């Protein structure tokens, strides 16, 4: 006789309503009597219902892995396994998806097939860091499950004190704003650091994220330690005909209120003939005007990236946004991409050598100071890295003349690429 379905009166209330219900999904898995995971999912539902009743979680961590890997599996053991033995082990396999999280229906079905064999049938698409999360695997099944996925070409993602799985926005694949090939940059970097993903031995986690422009559809600025954004150095491209068409269609007031007035640096001006004047020297590449007037405006052609370091969430100093450390790096040739990798490599090395245990890179930069960090990663100081110079005089500056000499030397030299 099959294991009975648990009573889940609280969870059942989450089956109604127009949004797709995860409870309905869980129940369907639990009721799939022909599947190995049905009993597990019954107990899982039982435990979850208990959590809803008691407002208490019942999972504890542990160590589970696959051969040759030190990360990628999030082990979960139930604290109330006596009552819910089938879901006593409910580990997650974090799997790295294709950049941009594109799938053929076929590939997705293959993943489902493997997961039906070894796991719970429950998959999160995707985790907040970007992994495919295959949730609910017994310890014994972890290795064979991984082996089959690995054969299909999938690999484990990050966890623990290592490089984490990375994401890039849809960008080049379907977005006209994209100023570099995010997927290419991401693949290059992630592949290079695979070892640090699989065998985490950093002071703490380190995340890369790639957004094709300032809109930051990958949430890089705050949710990654190393954030790369597309941008451009030359002028915004303006199709004045298309611009005038917008004015004609929507009126001048609309244009002033919604575009001109919202430029953060007042770099836009509406000419009397309804054409657009752009003060490109004051434009900060914020994307707003381009976002609104997609048919008339485009980023310039001299494209590249801005890199920010140090975004992270709450622990232990409060949330941090990243800080600009590379105002611009061209991103056209393969060598350009290699240079970005070079920066990443130096950042990683410096992080390994200098961070305290459990210290994110943003906290480290704050502790040692931006200037020391830049020296450590061999990048030149630039006023774009700060919102404003110091407003206090609490600093010993007896090296002023030397620093001035350095600056003049740099200014005299031909512009280096990674600046």
């Amino acid at each position, binding site marked *: 006789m099959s294991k009975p379905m648990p009573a889940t009166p609280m969870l059942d209330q989450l089956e109604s309503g127009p949004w797709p219900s995860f409870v309905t999904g869980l129940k369907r898995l639990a009721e799939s009597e022909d599947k190995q995971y049905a009993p597990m999912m019954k107990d899982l539902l039982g435990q979850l219902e208990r959590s809803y009743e008691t407002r208490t979680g019942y999972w504890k961590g542990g160590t589970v892995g696959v051969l040759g890997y030190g990360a990628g599996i999030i082990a979960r053991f139930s604290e109330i396994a006596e009552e819910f033995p089938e879901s006593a082990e409910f580990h997650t396999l974090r799997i790295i998806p294709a950049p941009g999280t594109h799938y*053929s229906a076929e590939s997705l079905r293959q993943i489902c097939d493997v997961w039906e064999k070894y796991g719970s049938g429950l*998959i999160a698409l995707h985790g907040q860091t970007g992994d495919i999360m295959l949730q609910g695997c017994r310890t014994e099944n972890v290795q064979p499950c991984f082996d089959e996925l690995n054969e299909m070409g999938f690999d484990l993602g990050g966890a623990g004190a290592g490089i984490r799985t990375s994401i890039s926005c849809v960008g080049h694949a379907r977005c006209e704003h994209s100023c570099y090939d995010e997927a290419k940059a991401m693949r290059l970097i992630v592949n290079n650091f695979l070892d640090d993903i699989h065998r985490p031995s950093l002071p703490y986690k380190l995340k890369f994220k790639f957004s094709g422009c300032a809109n930051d559809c990958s949430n890089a600025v705050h949710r990654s330690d190393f954030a790369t954004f597309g941008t451009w150095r030359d002028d915004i491209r303006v199709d004045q005909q298309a611009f005038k068409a917008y004015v004609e269609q929507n009126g001048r007031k609309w244009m002033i209120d919604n575009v001109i007035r919202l430029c953060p640096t007042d770099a836009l001006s509406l000419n009397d003939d309804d054409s657009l004047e752009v003060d490109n020297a004051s434009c900060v590449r914020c994307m*707003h005007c381009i976002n609104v007037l997609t048919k008339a405006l485009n980023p310039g052609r001299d494209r590249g990236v801005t890199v920010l370091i140090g975004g992270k969430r*709450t622990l232990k100093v409060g949330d941090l946004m990243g800080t600009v450390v590379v105002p611009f790096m061209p991103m056209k040739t393969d060598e350009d991409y290699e240079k970005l990798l070079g920066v990443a490599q130096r950042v990683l090395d410096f992080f390994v050598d200098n961070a305290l245990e459990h210290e994110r890179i943003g906290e480290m930069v704050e502790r040692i100071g931006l200037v020391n960090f830049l020296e450590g990663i061999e990048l030149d100081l630039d006023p774009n890295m700060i919102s404003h110079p110091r407003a206090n005089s609490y600093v010993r500056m007896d090296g002023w003349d030397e620093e001035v000499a350095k600056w003049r030397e740099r200014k005299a030299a031909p512009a280096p690429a990674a600046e």
Partner: protein
Amino acid sequence: MPLMHPLLRRNYGQWKWHDRPRPGVLHHVARSGEEVWTVRAGTQRQLDVYSIRTLCEIADTHADGFLRFTTRSNVEFMVGSADRVAPLIESLGEHGFPVGGTGPSVTMISHTQGWLHCDIPATDASGVVKSLMDSLHHEFTHEEMPNQVKITTSCCQINCGGQGDIAINIQHTKPPTINHDLVAQVCERPAVVARCPTAAIRPAVVNGKPSLEVDEKKCVCCGACFPPCPPMRINDPVHSKLAIWVGGKHSSTRTKPSFHKLVAAGLPNNPPRWPEVTEVVHNILGAYKANARPFERMGEWIGRIGWPRFFELTGLPFTKYHVDDWRLARPSLNASTHVYF
């Protein structure tokens, strides 16, 4: 790139412009002249294989066998001609996947793990998200907001959800209680001491065993000690509350990225539907929708009308807890005569 829709592959990096013919649909035009219509639909993120296979079938039938997921767990199908949009939408509707989440709508809430999987949650994420998205169905399927609204959840104060126009976070209100019998066994004491942001934890001997003790005057109830030392119970069915934060923003669009700010706290952790949370979120969204100007994100709107007016429009109470007293608190004080009446 074999997993990418061929149309996207062909025009990779060669897009020219886009518009949105209707909520849930994007229309991108490539320099080649090719066009692609994308239909976006919401999912529960925590997907069972049946639901995934349904999505695969829809892809096969309507979208050349390809699909992708967005950074917010919405699913997207791409088609090469305008007339294929309607049948695709219909099929998604039949299978219960709401079409929307584009442009100035409320898109899918960033989803974390909660009781379903995490080892440190004080609440559930799946249930909170489901409850909210049910109530926000209209806002997901319509583009009636001033700008995009990004809501995030986090099921403990670690906050795996990011900054949000609205963020729904756990706020513990009591210091951890310590099971002294277990500390020596499972916690690396110096590491735990080091994790505390306020240096509130010190080594101590309790009942003859090495343990830890917490200076309750210093403790800010952040819960950072709990993951490395589970005997320091921070989660509490009653005293772990929900708090609402507003005005977070990742984009550097117009204004610089910003952190969300505390607006409401003390909300009960009330499964299965957390009605108190839904109420506050709707209250805030209602004020935003009615008052913000086009393209103003939540925080930009409040930046213009001022926090006094925000509290007035929402009727939310303003308390001493809103006044920052953590590091960098000084810049949060009003150092000007700019005052709203």
